[in-house]
């Protein structure tokens, strides 16, 4: 089978999967911030390509009918959409649990009142660092830190359920404990300590963001201590940095298993980085229904189940636990989307990945390549990995 045949084989070889649990609605790629680890693609959708309100409403109807329970309004900055409150209200009307993932920057306070009134269930506010200087430099926006603190106060005033999103990397890993304290001070019920995942802009900036192994171990210990201290008051969810891990994470809970991601222009994706995998055919919501895409779309079926796996995954006892890790990371690091995720210690490339991470962590670079519509130079480092494929068993 050629690569293209493997990737686009018909859905009929699979039993139908259960319905999805969540819809990631990337309403826009516009954002006031320019975080160097943004998970958006390097080529962003411009405003004139964004789906209109009526199409999003139809998608929310289709999502609810398909059995989706959670909708995540994200982006970019979802609050930049003038129809955001209308979409939240519509999602509530059709029974969806509504989440909003916001930077807190670039909109008027009244817009937040409007989404609260529309029935928003849960808001996630990001913070880039504890100190204003680092926060504003990482986000590439002067005044972001101050603005986020004001928005946190508004969220408390409105009584919205809050999660604090702290994205962790070399420049702020030492602030892990303080982020937890901040979440408590802001009245959050939950915090995400999310180590940067190296796709999208993250991989372009990997040398500027990669923490040292010592930093990661310290940050993990800080999370455990904070969990014990805040038990019953604060839920602490932690996304591990996987280059140093023993086993990879079960990306998206499995390919095409739990989540659907819709890009601002209406492309349906099994994960936000899926477009980095060559040869996959993606459907758009303008052409097919969500249900049709979920059950029969070629891209969603490409890596469902375990049939597509190679060794060592194929004969591994963990294959139904982590599904071989992340397909996009396998693509980026091994040059083959069906390879074992090199973050896994059983991957033949793992040692080199760890060595690369350690070297980059020691590089002291801080010249961020900021996320933006201008795009970014394609990451170079990965190309060094590809020739090593010849060594694989």
């Amino acid at each position, binding site marked *: 089978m050629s690569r293209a045949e493997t990737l686009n084989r018909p859905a009929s070889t699979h039993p139908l999967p259960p*319905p999805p*649990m969540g819809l990631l609605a990337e309403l826009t790629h516009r954002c006031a911030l320019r975080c160097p680890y943004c998970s958006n693609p390097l080529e962003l959708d411009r405003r004139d390509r964004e789906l209109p309100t009526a199409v999003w409403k139809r998608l929310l109807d289709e999502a609810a*009918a*398909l*059995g989706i*329970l*959670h909708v995540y309004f994200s982006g970019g900055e979802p609050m930049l959409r003038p129809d955001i409150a209308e979409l939240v209200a519509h999602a509530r009307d059709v*029974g969806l*649990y509504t*989440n909003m993932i916001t930077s807190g920057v670039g909109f008027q306070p009244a817009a937040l009142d409007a989404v609260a009134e529309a029935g928003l*269930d*849960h808001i*996630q506010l990001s913070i880039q660092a504890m100190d204003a200087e680092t926060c504003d430099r990482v986000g590439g926006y002067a005044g972001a830190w101050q603005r986020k603190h004001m928005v946190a106060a508004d969220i408390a005033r409105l*009584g*919205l*359920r809050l*999660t604090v999103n702290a994205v962790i990397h070399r420049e702020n890993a030492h602030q892990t404990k303080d982020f937890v304290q901040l979440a408590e001070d802001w009245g959050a*019920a*939950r915090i*995400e300590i999310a180590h940067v995942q190296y796709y999208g802009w993250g991989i372009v900036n990997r040398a500027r963001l990669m923490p040292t192994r010592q930093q990661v171990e310290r940050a993990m210990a800080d999370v455990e201590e904070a969990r014990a201290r805040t*038990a*019953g*008051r*604060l*839920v602490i*969810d932690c996304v591990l940095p996987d280059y140093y891990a023993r086993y990879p994470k079960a990306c998206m809970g499995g390919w095409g298993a739990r989540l659907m991601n819709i890009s601002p222009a209406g492309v349906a994706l099994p994960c936000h980085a899926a477009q980095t995998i060559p040869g996959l055919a993606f459907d758009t919501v303008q052409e097919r229904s969500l249900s049709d895409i979920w059950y029969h779309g070629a891209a969603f079926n490409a890596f469902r189940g375990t049939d597509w796996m190679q060794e060592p995954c194929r004969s591994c006892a963990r294959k139904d636990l982590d599904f071989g890790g992340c397909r996009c990371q396998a693509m980026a690091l091994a040059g083959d989307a069906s390879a074992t995720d090199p973050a896994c210690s059983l991957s033949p490339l793992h040692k080199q990945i760890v060595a690369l991470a350690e070297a980059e962590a020691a590089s002291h670079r801080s010249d961020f390549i900021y996320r933006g519509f201008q795009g970014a130079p394609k990451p170079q480092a990965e190309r060094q990995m590809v020739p090593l494929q010849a060594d694989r068993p």
Partner: protein
Amino acid sequence: MSVDLAASGLASIVPALPRGVRLRFDESRQQWFLLGPERVFEPDDTAAEILRLIDGTRSVEAIAQDLAGKFEADPAEIAADVMAFLRDLAGQRMIDL
């Protein structure tokens, strides 16, 4: 059973679903779900019965009495189970006690 339900203090504990947590029946799966931030809790039949009785005014005692009638069981024993269940959910911030 020697537990005296009336003296247990459970009459004064009134569980409520906090803002940002919702109980809903999903038609496509024919199943109840308790939904919260990044959480999907799939209650079994008994748990769903308990959750459906939570309205922010009924006490744990009242809920236990109600269920005891339905399942012809000892209210004190049920109350202990309900309380353990609710404490667990409260620890995950999925319910207010």
